[in-house]
């Protein structure tokens, strides 16, 4: 199961859009939930007149049987105080549907990085202990960087370290819950800021691809991902001619 966390820059969601759009995944269902702000629109992955009229809502599930991949896309923010029940429901669905692994795409505030994190790659990963056994070695080979823990009481006591993912939304909660429930979960995140997060989405989805090999990685991988039609006009309408 691949899914985003609603996080800074919406990078996880944008990256998920790229996966669904490029692999031409089929919608197989949706979550009927009171935890997310309601929204509805026409098919965001429309490519022609014929397929542009299907309604789309805030939490939908897509699948690609050939790669044994299921993707959950979340399109609106959590309603206040509802993100915990959502996480509980989600994880119990993961268990009951016997999903083997969960990959969570997320992001974290770039301005919260320490001096060391400012250098080198802005991409990080996290693995629950159950998944660590299976793919920990692969991460070493890929030369990936694990998300660093920070001091629980900075300045006072530097020995106790905790996981801190500012701007990550439900990332930390899902990860810690998965650790305790024995779920194999990987978190892939990128440090970023709010703004034009399309390049961040590409970086994250290419990072994902290094591991899962969803598409053939060639030299110029950016051009291999298909941008969905709903990404038009992300930054507003055309300008009024009267302005000139």
């Amino acid at each position, binding site marked *: 199961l691949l899914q985003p*966390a*609603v*996080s*800074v*820059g*919406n990078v996880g969601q944008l990256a998920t859009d790229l996966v669904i759009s490029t692999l031409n995944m089929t919608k197989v269902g949706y979550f009927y939930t*009171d935890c997310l*702000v*309601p*929204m*509805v*629109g*026409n*098919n*965001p992955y*429309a490519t022609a007149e014929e397929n*542009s*009229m*299907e*309604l789309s*809502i*805030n939490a939908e599930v897509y699948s690609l049987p050939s790669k044994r991949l299921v993707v959950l896309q979340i399109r*609106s*923010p*959590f*309603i*206040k*105080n*509802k*993100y*915990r029940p959502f996480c509980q429901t989600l994880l119990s669905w993961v268990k009951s549907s016997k999903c083997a692994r969960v990959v969570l795409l997320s992001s974290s*505030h770039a*301005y919260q990085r320490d001096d060391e994190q400012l250098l080198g790659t802005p991409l990080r990963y996290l693995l629950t202990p159950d998944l660590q056994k299976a793919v920990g070695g692969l991460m070493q080979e890929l030369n990936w960087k694990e998300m660093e823990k920070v001091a629980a009481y900075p300045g006072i006591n530097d020995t106790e370290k905790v996981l801190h993912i*500012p*701007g*990550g*939304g*439900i990332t*930390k*909660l899902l990860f810690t819950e998965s650790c305790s429930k024995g779920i194999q979960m990987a978190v892939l995140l990128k440090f970023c*800021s*709010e703004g034009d997060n399309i390049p961040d989405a590409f970086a994250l989805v290419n990072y994902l691809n290094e591991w899962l090999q969803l598409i053939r990685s060639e030299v110029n991988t950016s051009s291999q991902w298909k941008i969905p*039609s*709903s*990404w*038009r*006009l*992300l930054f*507003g*309408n*055309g*300008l*009024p*001619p*009267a302005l000139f």
Partner: protein
Amino acid sequence: MATFFGEVVVAPSRAGVDDEESAEEAREETPEDREIRRELEKKREIDVLWTLKSGASTESSADEPFVCSRFIVAIGHNAAAFLSSFILDSVSWEVVGVVKLWNEWCRTSNTTNVLPTDSFCLFYRLISDPTVLLCQCSCYVAEDQQFQWLEKVFGCMRKEGLQVTILSTCPVADYKTQESTLTLPSPFLKALKTKEFKEQVCCPLLEQPNIVRDLPAA
């Protein structure tokens, strides 16, 4: 984050979960907290009251789901006013229900004889065909109440053979299009429909990337 002027502010994040909020949740909830939260939730509960033929009001849960063939819902002041001006009249329509709710933005009036400037949510039935229901909702239904509204209202009606039409308005400035919205001839109509809706739609469909949110979306 630092703004252009050098001041450091906490930027609202699209993550939707503030760190303070999650830290608060991590604290153990005391019995007082639980009580306060319960009281707040009760205050924000929605009550749907239906008026039976005899004129007595009962709670919706006591009723059998009633048969409905067409349900027209007008959400927002403009849509509600449209129904008042062109459709509703005291001869053909009768009031059959009301939704009572409270949130930080509005409280619904207690009477069914409402003024256009009041916040209200009323249900009307066509006297000549009692399976045709109309709802005028000019009050704002908050995010956390939308699902409840949906479940309680639709929970009272039989869904087989039901056709639902939702009327709503959005500011033209929110409409995303290649040209500037200044040059658009407004007002204009757009529609969204489910696969099951087989009839002709009277206006063009809403183009991507535009979306509908809140109660009409729910």
